């Protein structure tokens, strides 16, 4: 059974600080996704990581993938209040018609 584990599940940090969210998964996967969710809202795609060593950056967020370690990280640089949200990682499996298996989410609160 594929499991996806995120940590931490809750993170409160000050503006201007750096931090990393970790996502471990238990079996081989084709792709890893990062999503952002604001309270009561839909799932906004942030990054799709397709191969070992993939690194993608958008603004203050950077995601990376190590398929050998089955680990992805989402790094936040110089956090700002607008980045407060819940961040989910998810992986899909080609032989399960690409259904997504989700981590539990990391609730990020950034204080001014």
């Amino acid at each position: 059974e594929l499991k996806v584990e995120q940590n931490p599940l809750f993170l409160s940090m000050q503006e201007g600080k750096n931090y990393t969210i970790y996502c471990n998964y238990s079996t081989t996967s084709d792709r890893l996704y990062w999503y952002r969710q604001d309270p009561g809202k839909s799932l906004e795609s942030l990054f799709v990581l397709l191969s070992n060593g993939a690194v993608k950056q958008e603004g203050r967020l950077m995601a990376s993938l190590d398929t050998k370690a089955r680990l992805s990280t989402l790094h936040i640089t110089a956090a700002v209040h607008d980045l407060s949200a819940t961040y989910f990682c998810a992986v899909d499996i080609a032989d399960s018609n690409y259904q997504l298996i989700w981590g539990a989410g990391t609730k990020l609160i950034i204080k001014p």
Partner: protein
Amino acid sequence: EPEVTQTPSHQVTQMGQEVILRCVPISNHLYFYWYRQILGQKVEFLVSFYNNEISEKSEIFDDQFSVERPDGSNFTLKIRSTKLEDSAMYFCASSGRGRGYTFGSGTRLTVV
């Protein structure tokens, strides 16, 4: 940019009643999904649909649930006899051969 449309955005129903949640996936996508998210919890896979039939379903997707693509554009999720524990946000998603997902804005189902 193409989007996945879900209606209604919020539905309140009495326990035991039938509900139909509607989705219009992106027109050239081949895979369709329903996911649900109980408030404050992780996103859970319900069902995937490909080539006009269910390709995968989770343990949550029991006999009370069904999906249909009645007219080549809509994709519906029916819950025959709702229970209190069915209260959740339901997300529809579509994908083109597993290469990235587009999620709808969700339907918040409240069973009273």
